[in-house]
């Protein structure tokens, strides 16, 4: 993604702005535009990538000045972290930047979303991920399976960590995989489902890896899945609710997202497949009695997703969206529990995987 080291890159940024000032030029930072209008679906790699458009941020501009100040402030914080070889969380960085300018009632940042945005901008400017800039997000997911890794000098067996499994850190770049015996990965939207499968020793029986996040998939998990997918050629199956949000989770995992389009290369998993719950499953396993009526917002979300470039010409998916709208209802994964508490690990998943019953 980038050349040189992060601290060199930050120094270059500083030097180029100082050069502007010496020349009497309005200090300017230029980087890729991070909006929908500048995101393209690359048909060849089947992922979302950033387009050619770039934006200029100048200091002497009433609309830009504050953001300029914030960006430079975050750059300074990042360089400090790199120098002392420490990592800070997004929240830490917010508090490090939050202070009042002398002789005024203006804060450099008022809300965490401002420093978060500045961090994402800095990723685009330096071409390094925030983890490489020593800024991490919170840990948000669990993994279990027959895998041995090395992390910060410790050897860890994902199969021997009790009921909680291994919690996935924000930065998985430095992890070394010592042995990977599993044959495939199931990524699931719900923590509760993961706990069910873990208790049932599903990963042991099926020789697979089970991974979960809470809600939206974090960057660390996406990167971990991507590494397992590309380094060990493990197939990845997504298990989500049968609802527009489930489709969206799958879409982001597979193709990338708008806000992180600049990192698609490191995050997208074009080989991921959708395991369920599908509308066909609803009919096959008789889940109609657990229908939840679609809200207006759900319907408009389906329309929106159906219109994505990467779904537009996919007959199978268009058929899926159409069926959900015909049902006028959605279903949660946990509806499977109505057929018995271990139905999902004993019957549903083994059957689907055996049949290779996936959507792509």
């Amino acid at each position, binding site marked *: 993604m980038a050349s040189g080291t992060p601290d060199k890159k*930050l*120094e270059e*940024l*500083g*030097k180029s*702005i*100082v050069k502007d*000032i*010496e020349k*009497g030029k*309005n*200090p300017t930072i230029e980087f890729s535009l991070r909006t929908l209008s500048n995101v393209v679906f690359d048909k060849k790699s089947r992922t979302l990538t950033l387009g050619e458009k770039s934006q200029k941020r100048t*200091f*002497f*501009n*009433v609309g830009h*000045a*504050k953001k*300029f*100040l914030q960006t*430079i*402030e975050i*750059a*300074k914080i990042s*360089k*400090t972290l790199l120098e002392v070889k420490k990592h800070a969380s997004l929240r830490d960085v917010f508090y490090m930047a939050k202070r009042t*300018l*002398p*002789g*005024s009632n*203006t804060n*450099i940042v008022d809300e965490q979303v401002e420093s978060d945005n500045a961090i994402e901008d800095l990723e685009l400017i330096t071409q390094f991920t925030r983890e490489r800039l020593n800024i991490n997000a919170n840990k948000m997911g669990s993994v279990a399976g027959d895998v041995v890794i090395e992390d910060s000098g410790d050897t860890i067996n994902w199969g021997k960590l009790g009921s909680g499994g291994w919690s996935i850190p924000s930065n998985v770049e430095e992890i070394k995989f010592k042995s990977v015996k599993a044959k495939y990965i199931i990524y699931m939207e719900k923590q509760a489902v993961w706990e069910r499968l873990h208790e049932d020793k599903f990963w042991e029986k099926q020789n697979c890896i089970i991974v979960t996040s809470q809600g939206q998939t974090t960057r660390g998990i996406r990167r971990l899945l991507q590494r397992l997918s590309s380094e060990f050629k493990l197939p990845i199956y997504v298990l989500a609710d049968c609802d527009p949000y489930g489709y969206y989770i799958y879409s982001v995992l597979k193709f990338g997202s708008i806000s992180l389009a600049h990192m698609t290369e490191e995050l997208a998993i074009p080989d991921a497949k959708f395991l369920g719950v599908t509308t066909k499953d609803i009919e096959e396993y008789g889940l109609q009695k657990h229908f939840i009526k679609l809200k207006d917002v759900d319907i408009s979300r389906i329309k929106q997703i159906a219109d994505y470039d990467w779904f537009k010409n996919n007959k199978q998916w268009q058929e899926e969206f159409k069926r959900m709208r015909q049902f006028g209802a959605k279903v949660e994964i946990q509806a499977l529990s109505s057929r018995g508490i271990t139905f999902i690990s004993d019957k549903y998943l083994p059957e689907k995987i055996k049949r290779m019953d996936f959507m792509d």
Partner: protein
Amino acid sequence: MDSETPIAYELAKKQKEISVAEFFTKNRHLLGFDNKRKALLMAIKEAVDNSLDACEEARILPEIYVEIIQLSESRYKVSIEDNGPGIVKKQIPNIFAKLLYGSKFHNLRQARGQQGIGISAAVLYSQLTTGRPAKITSRVSPKEPALYYELNIDTQNNKPIIAKEEIIEWKKNNGTKIELDLEAEYIKGKQSVDEYLKQTAVINPHITIVYTNPKAEQVIYAAATDKLPSEAKSIKPHPYGVELGMLMNLLKWTESRTIQSFLTSEFSRVGSGTAKEICNNASILPNTKSNDITRELAEKLLASMQSTKIIAPPTDCLSPIGEESLEKGLRKEIRSEFYCTKSRPPSVYRGNPFLIEVGVAYGGDIPKEEKITLLRFANRVPLLYQEGACGITNSLTETNWKPYGLQQSSGSMPIGPVVVIVHMASVWVPFTSESKEAIAHYPEIMKDVKLAIQDCGRQLGIYVNKKTRISQQLERANMFEKYIPEIADSLAFLSGDKKEKIVDGLNKMLVKPEIKKEIVQEDAEDDKIYRMEFKKNEEGESE
């Protein structure tokens, strides 16, 4: 008691005529003399109003001397002297010592006083509280001697009692002076004599007042113009403004023989055609004798007068202050940074012509965080009491001031550094009571006040908006100055260069023209939003 005699005969022994003067002694609050503070103000106000009316009628630029001397703790002597036309010998006792005597009541003409009750009420109050007579000096011409009177009022019969009458030496060629002793209390502040005189000076930029207060401090309110207001013509009543009692009175005193000639000669805007139409509508023959009109017929006649289509009364009976003079008056007494004034064209309520004038002063010495100050005037007289009951106040609070750059919670007085003057000129100002303190809520009047306020408000809004913009620009320049040390600090850390060098470089750029342009932006967008706000404010209220 003899049961043969009805009780009414017994009661009749106690029933007798009450004189107006006697009525007043018991109901002095009706005329504004309810307490000692207000009494002082009312006595001076009545005398000054009369002086100003007299001077203007004689086309003399008024110069008024007002003096208050404290005699004892609650006793004061007031003295008001003018350079007016003076009063002829025969009339002096009646004008000052007979209630309801005056030239104005039967006349429809814009004047300060209207019922002829004011100054004699002050004389009566003085007599009631101190027992001292009113002292009057008057001279009509250098060729005639100055007359001096001491007058009391016979309260039983509402007649003047002349206590003293003599010819004296007087330095003045013409003019009138009145001296009264009265129970009173002198205060400063919102409803004081000081405030009344100051406001009088604002609304009458052509007058000079020399005022000496009880502390022997002298204030001179100098004239700001030597232009007298145009002479107000008297008009006959308009048929729409007449009530039954007045109509019957007019019928009784008229010299016209027939009802048709009565209508054409006693009313404005009634020609023979209109007179016939009124008669037709009332089913009365036009040649019916005026004396033959009974109460029932008069009622019919009145109904017909009010339903027949008649053109509006003439408006040359009004004498507005004018936008230019009003602004001069404002500038003279209220120190601020922005002034604007609006004189509306004449309108009519219930057959009475009137016109509204509004002036607005903004900023300067006027306090910023307080409710705005409203100064109300009727025929150039300040109204100091009963602000809440006045139609003018309602018009002001019902106007949305937010687009004009002031804070306001809906339906209440806006907040900001503003003084608003509202003047109503009319041949008959509809006061809510005889003490003439609040104007009644006629929709026609309230609408015109609002329109005039909106007119000034628009100009005010443009000014306030511009001012805000300039302060925003300053804020922006300030913002960059605050950011520079922070940015320089971070950049020095990132690049390894010296902070001072970076600060210097950035500060130098701050004064460059292309960067200045960024700070001093032409906010075309602001103006657009602002105009849209105005449109909203006026929808449904425009003429």
